[in-house]
Protein backbone atom coordinates (compact mmCIF):
# COMPACT_ATOMS: atom_id res chain seq x y z
CA UNK A 1 0.00 0.00 0.00
CA UNK A 2 1.20 3.45 -0.79
CA UNK A 3 1.74 5.81 2.07
CA UNK A 4 1.70 9.57 1.75
CA UNK A 5 5.13 11.00 1.07
CA UNK A 6 6.83 12.45 4.11
CA UNK A 7 8.91 15.54 3.71
CA UNK A 8 12.18 15.34 5.63
CA UNK A 9 13.14 18.49 7.52
CA UNK A 10 14.33 19.66 10.88
CA UNK A 11 10.71 19.83 11.92
CA UNK A 12 10.02 16.20 10.93
CA UNK A 13 13.15 15.12 12.79
CA UNK A 14 11.96 16.87 15.94
CA UNK A 15 8.52 15.34 15.57
CA UNK A 16 9.97 11.87 15.15
CA UNK A 17 12.21 12.33 18.17
CA UNK A 18 9.13 13.37 20.17
CA UNK A 19 7.13 10.23 19.37
CA UNK A 20 9.99 7.77 19.62
CA UNK A 21 10.66 7.01 15.95
CA UNK A 22 7.29 5.45 15.09
CA UNK A 23 6.62 8.50 12.93
CA UNK A 24 8.80 7.37 10.03
CA UNK A 25 7.23 5.72 6.98
CA UNK A 26 8.85 3.15 4.76
CA UNK A 27 11.00 4.72 2.04
CA UNK A 28 9.15 2.81 -0.67
CA UNK A 29 6.09 0.64 -0.30
CA UNK A 30 5.71 -3.00 -1.29
CA UNK A 31 3.38 -2.50 -4.25
CA UNK A 32 1.99 -5.49 -6.18
CA UNK A 33 3.12 -6.22 -9.74
CA UNK A 34 0.52 -5.12 -12.32
CA UNK A 35 -0.14 -6.86 -15.64
CA UNK A 36 0.78 -3.95 -17.89
CA UNK A 37 2.95 -0.86 -17.74
CA UNK A 38 3.90 2.04 -20.00
CA UNK A 39 7.56 1.56 -19.15
CA UNK A 40 9.25 -1.41 -17.52
CA UNK A 41 12.72 -0.63 -16.20
CA UNK A 42 14.83 -3.73 -15.60
CA UNK A 43 17.30 -3.27 -12.76
CA UNK A 44 16.73 -1.32 -9.53
CA UNK A 45 20.19 0.16 -9.30
CA UNK A 46 21.23 3.77 -9.60
CA UNK A 47 20.61 4.16 -13.33
CA UNK A 48 17.34 2.23 -13.38
CA UNK A 49 15.84 4.10 -10.44
CA UNK A 50 17.05 7.48 -11.69
CA UNK A 51 15.56 6.79 -15.13
CA UNK A 52 12.24 5.76 -13.57
CA UNK A 53 12.24 8.84 -11.34
CA UNK A 54 12.85 11.24 -14.23
CA UNK A 55 10.31 9.45 -16.46
CA UNK A 56 7.69 10.01 -13.78
CA UNK A 57 8.75 13.51 -12.76
CA UNK A 58 9.77 15.18 -16.04
CA UNK A 59 7.73 13.30 -18.60
CA UNK A 60 4.52 12.54 -16.76
CA UNK A 61 4.55 8.81 -17.43
CA UNK A 62 2.36 7.25 -14.76
CA UNK A 63 2.55 3.49 -15.09
CA UNK A 64 6.20 2.60 -14.49
CA UNK A 65 7.66 -0.52 -12.92
CA UNK A 66 11.22 -1.13 -11.83
CA UNK A 67 11.93 -4.87 -11.76
CA UNK A 68 14.86 -6.11 -9.74
CA UNK A 69 16.27 -9.64 -9.77
CA UNK A 70 17.44 -9.55 -6.16
CA UNK A 71 17.35 -6.55 -3.83
CA UNK A 72 17.25 -2.86 -4.55
CA UNK A 73 20.73 -1.37 -4.62
CA UNK A 74 22.38 -4.77 -4.32
CA UNK A 75 24.45 -4.39 -7.48
CA UNK A 76 27.07 -1.88 -8.45
CA UNK A 77 25.34 1.13 -6.88
CA UNK A 78 26.16 -0.45 -3.53
CA UNK A 79 29.57 -1.78 -4.55
CA UNK A 80 31.44 1.21 -5.91
CA UNK A 81 33.96 3.46 -4.20
CA UNK A 82 31.54 6.44 -4.17
CA UNK A 83 33.79 8.86 -6.08
CA UNK A 84 32.20 11.58 -8.21
CA UNK A 85 34.23 13.68 -10.66
CA UNK A 86 34.22 15.03 -14.20
CA UNK A 87 37.93 15.09 -15.07
CA UNK A 88 37.82 13.74 -18.60
CA UNK A 89 39.79 14.66 -21.68
CA UNK A 90 37.16 14.18 -24.38
CA UNK A 91 34.46 16.88 -24.63
CA UNK A 92 31.69 14.29 -25.07
CA UNK A 93 32.73 12.76 -21.77
CA UNK A 94 33.58 15.79 -19.65
CA UNK A 95 30.45 17.69 -20.67
CA UNK A 96 28.30 14.74 -19.74
CA UNK A 97 29.99 14.08 -16.41
CA UNK A 98 30.02 17.80 -15.61
CA UNK A 99 26.26 17.84 -16.08
CA UNK A 100 26.18 14.94 -13.65
CA UNK A 101 28.43 16.70 -11.14
CA UNK A 102 26.17 19.78 -11.20
CA UNK A 103 23.21 17.55 -10.50
CA UNK A 104 25.06 15.90 -7.58
CA UNK A 105 25.43 19.34 -6.02
CA UNK A 106 21.67 19.81 -5.75
CA UNK A 107 20.54 16.19 -5.59
CA UNK A 108 19.90 16.12 -1.85
CA UNK A 109 17.44 19.00 -2.26
CA UNK A 110 15.82 17.52 -5.38
CA UNK A 111 15.23 14.16 -3.72
CA UNK A 112 14.65 15.58 -0.22
CA UNK A 113 17.09 12.91 0.90
CA UNK A 114 20.60 13.53 2.15
CA UNK A 115 22.98 11.79 -0.24
CA UNK A 116 25.95 13.33 1.59
CA UNK A 117 27.68 14.90 -1.41
CA UNK A 118 31.08 15.90 -0.13
CA UNK A 119 33.16 18.04 -2.54
CA UNK A 120 36.44 17.32 -0.81
CA UNK A 121 38.51 17.45 -3.97
CA UNK A 122 39.86 14.64 -6.04
CA UNK A 123 43.51 14.39 -7.05
CA UNK A 124 44.86 12.21 -9.82
CA UNK A 125 48.57 11.62 -9.20
CA UNK A 126 51.22 10.31 -11.56
CA UNK A 127 54.76 8.99 -11.24
CA UNK A 128 56.47 10.57 -14.26
CA UNK A 129 56.92 13.78 -16.23
CA UNK A 130 55.12 12.11 -19.13
CA UNK A 131 52.21 11.58 -16.83
CA UNK A 132 52.28 15.27 -15.88
CA UNK A 133 52.05 16.21 -19.56
CA UNK A 134 49.02 13.98 -19.95
CA UNK A 135 47.41 15.53 -16.88
CA UNK A 136 48.16 19.06 -18.13
CA UNK A 137 46.45 18.28 -21.41
CA UNK A 138 43.47 16.79 -19.61
CA UNK A 139 43.24 19.74 -17.22
CA UNK A 140 43.44 22.27 -20.06
CA UNK A 141 40.69 20.45 -21.96
CA UNK A 142 38.53 20.65 -18.85
CA UNK A 143 39.24 24.35 -18.25
CA UNK A 144 38.30 25.13 -21.85
CA UNK A 145 34.92 23.59 -21.08
CA UNK A 146 34.61 25.66 -17.91
CA UNK A 147 35.27 22.77 -15.53
CA UNK A 148 37.43 23.41 -12.50
CA UNK A 149 40.84 21.77 -12.56
CA UNK A 150 44.22 22.66 -11.16
CA UNK A 151 47.59 21.19 -12.02
CA UNK A 152 49.57 20.61 -8.84
CA UNK A 153 53.32 20.23 -8.86
CA UNK A 154 55.06 18.37 -6.07
CA UNK A 155 55.08 21.36 -3.71
CA UNK A 156 51.46 22.29 -4.27
CA UNK A 157 50.46 18.65 -3.89
CA UNK A 158 52.33 18.43 -0.58
CA UNK A 159 50.39 21.50 0.60
CA UNK A 160 47.05 20.10 -0.52
CA UNK A 161 47.57 16.59 0.87
CA UNK A 162 49.70 17.06 4.00
CA UNK A 163 48.85 13.48 5.03
CA UNK A 164 51.12 12.21 2.29
CA UNK A 165 54.88 12.40 2.76
CA UNK A 166 56.15 13.15 -0.75
CA UNK A 167 59.81 13.23 0.31
CA UNK A 168 59.67 9.59 1.26
CA UNK A 169 61.57 7.51 -1.30
CA UNK A 170 59.26 5.39 -3.38
CA UNK A 171 59.91 3.01 -6.23
CA UNK A 172 57.42 5.08 -8.22
CA UNK A 173 57.81 8.65 -6.95
CA UNK A 174 54.77 10.92 -6.87
CA UNK A 175 55.64 13.76 -9.23
CA UNK A 176 52.44 15.79 -9.17
CA UNK A 177 48.76 15.66 -9.80
CA UNK A 178 45.62 17.13 -11.26
CA UNK A 179 43.10 18.41 -8.74
CA UNK A 180 39.41 18.77 -9.36
CA UNK A 181 38.22 20.72 -6.30
CA UNK A 182 34.53 19.94 -6.86
CA UNK A 183 35.15 16.23 -7.15
CA UNK A 184 34.52 14.17 -4.06
CA UNK A 185 32.33 11.45 -2.70
CA UNK A 186 28.62 10.70 -2.30
CA UNK A 187 27.04 8.18 0.04
CA UNK A 188 26.24 5.44 -2.49
CA UNK A 189 23.44 3.59 -0.69
CA UNK A 190 21.68 6.86 0.00
CA UNK A 191 21.56 7.49 -3.75
CA UNK A 192 19.72 4.22 -4.35
CA UNK A 193 17.39 4.78 -1.40
CA UNK A 194 16.79 8.44 -2.23
CA UNK A 195 15.89 7.75 -5.85
CA UNK A 196 13.72 4.77 -4.85
CA UNK A 197 11.85 6.86 -2.30
CA UNK A 198 11.36 9.76 -4.69
CA UNK A 199 10.26 7.45 -7.52
CA UNK A 200 7.86 5.52 -5.29
CA UNK A 201 6.30 8.80 -4.17
CA UNK A 202 5.60 9.57 -7.83
CA UNK A 203 3.78 6.26 -8.26
CA UNK A 204 6.56 4.03 -9.61
CA UNK A 205 6.16 0.35 -8.66
CA UNK A 206 9.42 -1.05 -7.34
CA UNK A 207 9.32 -4.85 -7.50
CA UNK A 208 12.19 -6.74 -5.89
CA UNK A 209 12.92 -10.46 -6.31
CA UNK A 210 11.53 -10.43 -9.86
CA UNK A 211 13.94 -11.69 -12.49
CA UNK A 212 13.39 -10.91 -16.17
CA UNK A 213 14.08 -14.05 -18.18
CA UNK A 214 13.01 -13.13 -21.70
CA UNK A 215 11.48 -10.47 -23.90
CA UNK A 216 8.31 -11.25 -25.84
CA UNK A 217 8.05 -9.70 -29.29
CA UNK A 218 5.45 -9.31 -32.03
CA UNK A 219 5.64 -7.57 -35.40
CA UNK A 220 9.11 -6.16 -34.86
CA UNK A 221 8.32 -4.62 -31.49
CA UNK A 222 8.76 -5.85 -27.95
CA UNK A 223 5.43 -6.41 -26.22
CA UNK A 224 6.52 -7.32 -22.71
CA UNK A 225 8.88 -9.23 -20.49
CA UNK A 226 8.72 -12.73 -19.08
CA UNK A 227 9.63 -12.63 -15.42
CA UNK A 228 9.93 -15.06 -12.56
CA UNK A 229 6.56 -13.67 -11.44
CA UNK A 230 4.84 -14.08 -14.78
CA UNK A 231 4.38 -12.09 -17.95
CA UNK A 232 4.33 -8.28 -17.77
CA UNK A 233 3.12 -6.29 -20.74
CA UNK A 234 5.17 -3.18 -21.50
CA UNK A 235 5.05 -0.49 -24.15
CA UNK A 236 8.69 0.36 -23.62
CA UNK A 237 11.42 -1.65 -21.93
CA UNK A 238 14.55 -0.16 -20.41
CA UNK A 239 17.51 -2.33 -19.45
CA UNK A 240 19.81 -0.84 -16.82
CA UNK A 241 21.46 -4.03 -15.61
CA UNK A 242 25.13 -3.03 -15.27
CA UNK A 243 27.29 -6.15 -15.35
CA UNK A 244 24.66 -8.22 -17.15
CA UNK A 245 24.20 -5.84 -20.10
CA UNK A 246 26.22 -8.14 -22.34
CA UNK A 247 24.03 -11.09 -21.36
CA UNK A 248 20.91 -9.04 -22.20
CA UNK A 249 22.35 -8.44 -25.66
CA UNK A 250 22.83 -12.19 -26.05
CA UNK A 251 19.27 -12.79 -24.82
CA UNK A 252 17.91 -10.44 -27.51
CA UNK A 253 20.23 -11.80 -30.20
CA UNK A 254 22.17 -8.54 -30.44
CA UNK A 255 25.82 -9.11 -29.49
CA UNK A 256 27.20 -6.02 -27.77
CA UNK A 257 30.75 -4.63 -27.66
CA UNK A 258 30.90 -5.52 -23.99
CA UNK A 259 32.82 -7.91 -21.80
CA UNK A 260 32.04 -8.28 -18.12
CA UNK A 261 35.02 -8.06 -15.78
CA UNK A 262 35.34 -7.87 -12.03
CA UNK A 263 36.53 -4.88 -10.07
CA UNK A 264 37.16 -5.20 -6.39
CA UNK A 265 37.20 -2.70 -3.58
CA UNK A 266 37.82 -2.89 0.13
CA UNK A 267 37.35 -0.89 3.30
CA UNK A 268 39.46 -0.70 6.43
CA UNK A 269 38.33 -0.38 10.01
CA UNK A 270 37.18 3.08 11.09
CA UNK A 271 39.79 5.55 12.24
CA UNK A 272 39.78 9.23 13.08
CA UNK A 273 39.92 11.59 10.07
CA UNK A 274 43.30 11.22 8.37
CA UNK A 275 42.48 11.96 4.75
CA UNK A 276 40.46 14.93 3.57
CA UNK A 277 40.41 14.28 -0.16
CA UNK A 278 40.15 11.54 -2.76
CA UNK A 279 43.52 10.26 -3.96
CA UNK A 280 43.99 8.42 -7.24
CA UNK A 281 47.50 7.23 -7.97
CA UNK A 282 48.45 6.03 -11.44
CA UNK A 283 51.84 4.39 -11.25
CA UNK A 284 53.59 2.05 -13.63
CA UNK A 285 50.83 -0.15 -15.04
CA UNK A 286 48.73 -0.04 -11.88
CA UNK A 287 46.29 2.25 -10.16
CA UNK A 288 45.08 2.71 -6.60
CA UNK A 289 42.46 5.08 -5.29
CA UNK A 290 41.64 5.82 -1.70
CA UNK A 291 39.25 8.00 0.24
CA UNK A 292 37.91 8.13 3.78
CA UNK A 293 34.22 7.68 4.44
CA UNK A 294 32.36 9.85 6.92
CA UNK A 295 32.24 6.80 9.18
CA UNK A 296 36.04 6.70 9.18
CA UNK A 297 36.87 3.66 7.06
CA UNK A 298 39.31 4.02 4.20
CA UNK A 299 37.79 2.83 0.94
CA UNK A 300 40.42 1.48 -1.44
CA UNK A 301 40.11 0.30 -5.02
CA UNK A 302 42.28 -0.52 -7.99
CA UNK A 303 42.23 -2.08 -11.42
CA UNK A 304 40.11 -4.81 -12.95
CA UNK A 305 40.80 -8.45 -12.19
CA UNK A 306 41.66 -9.02 -15.83
CA UNK A 307 39.33 -11.67 -17.22
CA UNK A 308 35.62 -12.17 -17.85
CA UNK A 309 33.58 -13.16 -14.82
CA UNK A 310 30.05 -12.88 -13.46
CA UNK A 311 30.49 -14.47 -10.06
CA UNK A 312 31.84 -11.56 -7.98
CA UNK A 313 34.66 -13.68 -6.57
CA UNK A 314 37.67 -11.43 -6.82
CA UNK A 315 41.28 -12.54 -7.09
CA UNK A 316 43.67 -12.39 -4.17
CA UNK A 317 46.70 -11.15 -6.13
CA UNK A 318 44.83 -8.06 -7.28
CA UNK A 319 43.76 -7.31 -3.72
CA UNK A 320 47.37 -7.61 -2.61
CA UNK A 321 48.48 -5.28 -5.40
CA UNK A 322 45.87 -2.65 -4.50
CA UNK A 323 46.83 -2.79 -0.83
CA UNK A 324 50.52 -2.44 -1.77
CA UNK A 325 49.67 0.68 -3.75
CA UNK A 326 47.64 2.16 -0.90
CA UNK A 327 50.38 1.52 1.64
CA UNK A 328 53.03 2.95 -0.68
CA UNK A 329 50.90 6.07 -0.97
CA UNK A 330 50.06 6.41 2.73
CA UNK A 331 52.49 4.27 4.77
CA UNK A 332 50.76 5.26 8.02
CA UNK A 333 47.74 3.08 7.17
CA UNK A 334 49.79 -0.12 6.94
CA UNK A 335 48.67 -1.26 10.39
CA UNK A 336 44.95 -0.98 9.68
CA UNK A 337 42.90 -4.11 9.23
CA UNK A 338 40.64 -4.63 6.26
CA UNK A 339 37.05 -5.05 7.35
CA UNK A 340 35.45 -6.04 4.09
CA UNK A 341 36.39 -6.76 0.53
CA UNK A 342 33.94 -7.19 -2.32
CA UNK A 343 33.71 -7.13 -6.10
CA UNK A 344 31.28 -5.81 -8.67
CA UNK A 345 30.68 -6.91 -12.24
CA UNK A 346 31.69 -4.18 -14.67
CA UNK A 347 30.34 -4.18 -18.23
CA UNK A 348 33.49 -3.05 -19.99
CA UNK A 349 32.92 -1.61 -23.46
CA UNK A 350 35.53 -1.76 -26.19
CA UNK A 351 36.27 1.97 -25.99
CA UNK A 352 35.63 2.58 -22.30
CA UNK A 353 32.59 4.80 -22.84
CA UNK A 354 28.98 3.95 -22.03
CA UNK A 355 26.24 2.70 -24.35
CA UNK A 356 22.84 4.42 -24.31
CA UNK A 357 20.83 3.31 -27.29
CA UNK A 358 18.00 1.19 -28.60
CA UNK A 359 18.67 -2.52 -28.46
CA UNK A 360 17.32 -4.68 -31.26
CA UNK A 361 13.79 -3.25 -31.19
CA UNK A 362 12.41 0.26 -31.47
CA UNK A 363 10.92 0.18 -27.99
CA UNK A 364 13.74 -1.57 -26.15
CA UNK A 365 16.41 0.68 -24.65
CA UNK A 366 19.72 -0.16 -23.06
CA UNK A 367 21.60 1.97 -20.58
CA UNK A 368 24.84 0.19 -19.86
CA UNK A 369 28.49 -0.25 -20.62
CA UNK A 370 29.44 2.09 -17.80
CA UNK A 371 32.63 0.15 -17.21
CA UNK A 372 33.58 0.94 -13.63
CA UNK A 373 32.47 4.57 -13.65
CA UNK A 374 28.69 4.37 -13.68
CA UNK A 375 28.08 5.67 -10.18
CA UNK A 376 29.06 9.29 -10.76
CA UNK A 377 26.98 9.35 -13.97
CA UNK A 378 23.70 8.42 -12.27
CA UNK A 379 21.92 11.83 -12.10
CA UNK A 380 22.79 12.93 -15.65
CA UNK A 381 22.19 9.47 -17.07
CA UNK A 382 18.78 9.22 -15.41
CA UNK A 383 17.61 12.59 -16.70
CA UNK A 384 18.99 12.25 -20.23
CA UNK A 385 18.00 8.64 -20.67
CA UNK A 386 14.45 9.32 -19.43
CA UNK A 387 14.17 11.99 -22.11
CA UNK A 388 15.43 9.50 -24.69
CA UNK A 389 12.89 6.86 -23.60
CA UNK A 390 9.99 9.31 -23.35
CA UNK A 391 10.53 11.19 -26.62
CA UNK A 392 12.34 8.58 -28.70
CA UNK A 393 15.13 11.05 -29.51
CA UNK A 394 18.44 11.01 -27.69
CA UNK A 395 19.30 14.44 -26.24
CA UNK A 396 22.57 16.03 -27.37
CA UNK A 397 24.23 15.16 -24.08
CA UNK A 398 24.12 11.41 -24.79
CA UNK A 399 23.72 11.23 -28.58
CA UNK A 400 27.34 10.16 -29.11
CA UNK A 401 26.92 7.20 -26.72
CA UNK A 402 25.00 5.24 -29.38
CA UNK A 403 26.03 1.84 -30.65
CA UNK A 404 26.72 3.08 -34.15
CA UNK A 405 29.98 4.66 -33.05
CA UNK A 406 31.59 1.23 -33.25
CA UNK A 407 30.56 0.80 -36.87
CA UNK A 408 31.39 4.30 -38.11
CA UNK A 409 34.59 4.69 -36.11
CA UNK A 410 33.62 7.66 -33.93
CA UNK A 411 34.82 5.92 -30.79
CA UNK A 412 35.18 7.71 -27.47
CA UNK A 413 38.40 6.03 -26.44
CA UNK A 414 39.34 8.16 -23.45
CA UNK A 415 42.38 6.09 -22.52
CA UNK A 416 43.47 5.51 -26.13
CA UNK A 417 43.94 1.79 -25.62
CA UNK A 418 42.22 0.43 -28.72
CA UNK A 419 39.40 -2.10 -28.90
CA UNK A 420 40.04 -3.94 -25.65
CA UNK A 421 37.70 -4.11 -22.67
CA UNK A 422 40.42 -3.25 -20.19
CA UNK A 423 40.46 0.46 -19.54
CA UNK A 424 38.02 3.21 -18.97
Amino acid at each position, binding site marked *: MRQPQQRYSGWSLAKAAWDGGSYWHRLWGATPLQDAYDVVVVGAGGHGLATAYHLARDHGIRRIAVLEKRLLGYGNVGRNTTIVRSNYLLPENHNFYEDSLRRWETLSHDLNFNVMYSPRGMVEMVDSDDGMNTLARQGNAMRLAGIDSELLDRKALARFVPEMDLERPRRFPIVGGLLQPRGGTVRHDAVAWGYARAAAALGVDIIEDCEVTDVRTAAGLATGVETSRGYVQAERIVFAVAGHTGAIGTMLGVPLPIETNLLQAMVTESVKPILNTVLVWLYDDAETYISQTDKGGLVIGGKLD*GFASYNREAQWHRLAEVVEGAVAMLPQIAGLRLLRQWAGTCDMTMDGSPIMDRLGYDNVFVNGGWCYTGFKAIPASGAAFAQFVATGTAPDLIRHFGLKRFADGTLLDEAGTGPFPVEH
Partner: protein
Amino acid sequence: MKRVPARFQWSIEMQLQCPFCGWRQVAEFRCRGVVAEFDPDTVSGVYLRVNRTDSSIEYWQHLNGCRSWLRIWRNPSSGEVLEIQALDSLVQAVNPE
Protein backbone atom coordinates in the same frame (compact mmCIF):
# COMPACT_ATOMS: atom_id res chain seq x y z
CA MET B 1 34.97 -32.41 -22.28
CA LYS B 2 37.41 -33.49 -19.59
CA ARG B 3 36.90 -31.87 -16.21
CA VAL B 4 39.87 -30.50 -14.36
CA PRO B 5 39.87 -32.03 -10.85
CA ALA B 6 38.62 -29.64 -8.22
CA ARG B 7 41.99 -29.28 -6.58
CA PHE B 8 42.89 -26.17 -4.60
CA GLN B 9 39.20 -25.31 -4.39
CA TRP B 10 39.78 -24.13 -0.83
CA SER B 11 42.24 -21.54 -2.00
CA ILE B 12 41.16 -17.92 -2.17
CA GLU B 13 43.28 -17.52 -5.28
CA MET B 14 42.17 -19.22 -8.48
CA GLN B 15 44.68 -21.74 -9.76
CA LEU B 16 45.18 -22.96 -13.29
CA GLN B 17 46.86 -26.15 -14.46
CA CYS B 18 49.46 -25.23 -17.05
CA PRO B 19 50.07 -28.26 -19.31
CA PHE B 20 53.82 -27.72 -18.91
CA CYS B 21 54.23 -26.41 -15.36
CA GLY B 22 51.29 -27.91 -13.45
CA TRP B 23 49.14 -26.02 -10.95
CA ARG B 24 50.03 -22.36 -10.68
CA GLN B 25 48.40 -19.30 -9.17
CA VAL B 26 46.35 -17.21 -11.56
CA ALA B 27 48.64 -14.25 -10.88
CA GLU B 28 51.23 -15.94 -13.13
CA PHE B 29 48.83 -15.96 -16.07
CA ARG B 30 47.36 -13.21 -18.16
CA CYS B 31 44.09 -13.41 -20.04
CA ARG B 32 44.72 -12.45 -23.67
CA GLY B 33 41.09 -12.17 -24.73
CA VAL B 34 38.19 -14.33 -25.78
CA VAL B 35 38.27 -16.51 -28.87
CA ALA B 36 36.68 -14.48 -31.67
CA GLU B 37 33.24 -15.69 -32.71
CA PHE B 38 32.90 -13.40 -35.69
CA ASP B 39 34.98 -12.88 -38.80
CA PRO B 40 38.04 -11.06 -37.43
CA ASP B 41 38.24 -8.86 -40.51
CA THR B 42 34.90 -7.19 -39.82
CA VAL B 43 33.70 -4.55 -37.37
CA SER B 44 31.87 -7.30 -35.49
CA GLY B 45 35.03 -9.33 -35.18
CA VAL B 46 36.87 -6.40 -33.64
CA TYR B 47 34.23 -5.16 -31.23
CA LEU B 48 31.41 -7.60 -30.57
CA ARG B 49 31.34 -10.32 -27.94
CA VAL B 50 28.84 -13.09 -27.44
CA ASN B 51 28.46 -12.81 -23.70
CA ARG B 52 27.40 -16.21 -22.43
CA THR B 53 27.11 -16.32 -18.68
CA ASP B 54 27.73 -20.07 -18.59
CA SER B 55 30.63 -20.63 -20.96
CA SER B 56 33.61 -18.74 -22.23
CA ILE B 57 36.58 -19.76 -24.39
CA GLU B 58 39.65 -17.61 -23.91
CA TYR B 59 43.30 -17.33 -24.78
CA TRP B 60 45.60 -17.06 -21.80
CA GLN B 61 49.33 -16.86 -21.55
CA HIS B 62 51.46 -18.26 -18.76
CA LEU B 63 53.23 -14.93 -18.80
CA ASN B 64 55.23 -15.13 -15.59
CA GLY B 65 56.00 -18.81 -16.11
CA CYS B 66 56.79 -20.76 -19.25
CA ARG B 67 55.17 -18.09 -21.44
CA SER B 68 53.18 -20.68 -23.37
CA TRP B 69 49.83 -19.72 -24.90
CA LEU B 70 46.80 -21.63 -23.72
CA ARG B 71 43.19 -22.03 -24.70
CA ILE B 72 40.91 -22.24 -21.69
CA TRP B 73 37.26 -23.26 -21.39
CA ARG B 74 35.69 -21.61 -18.36
CA ASN B 75 32.30 -21.01 -16.79
CA PRO B 76 32.38 -17.29 -15.93
CA SER B 77 29.41 -17.58 -13.57
CA SER B 78 30.74 -20.35 -11.35
CA GLY B 79 34.42 -19.67 -11.96
CA GLU B 80 34.94 -23.34 -12.84
CA VAL B 81 37.73 -24.11 -15.30
CA LEU B 82 36.60 -26.91 -17.62
CA GLU B 83 39.59 -27.51 -19.84
CA ILE B 84 43.03 -26.12 -20.60
CA GLN B 85 44.88 -26.82 -23.84
CA ALA B 86 48.27 -25.67 -25.00
CA LEU B 87 48.36 -23.89 -28.34
CA ASP B 88 50.83 -25.34 -30.83
CA SER B 89 51.74 -21.98 -32.20
CA LEU B 90 50.75 -18.34 -32.16
CA VAL B 91 49.28 -18.78 -35.63
CA GLN B 92 46.59 -20.86 -34.01
CA ALA B 93 45.79 -18.11 -31.56
CA VAL B 94 45.14 -15.66 -34.33
CA ASN B 95 43.26 -18.07 -36.54
CA PRO B 96 42.08 -21.11 -34.58
CA GLU B 97 40.60 -23.15 -37.45
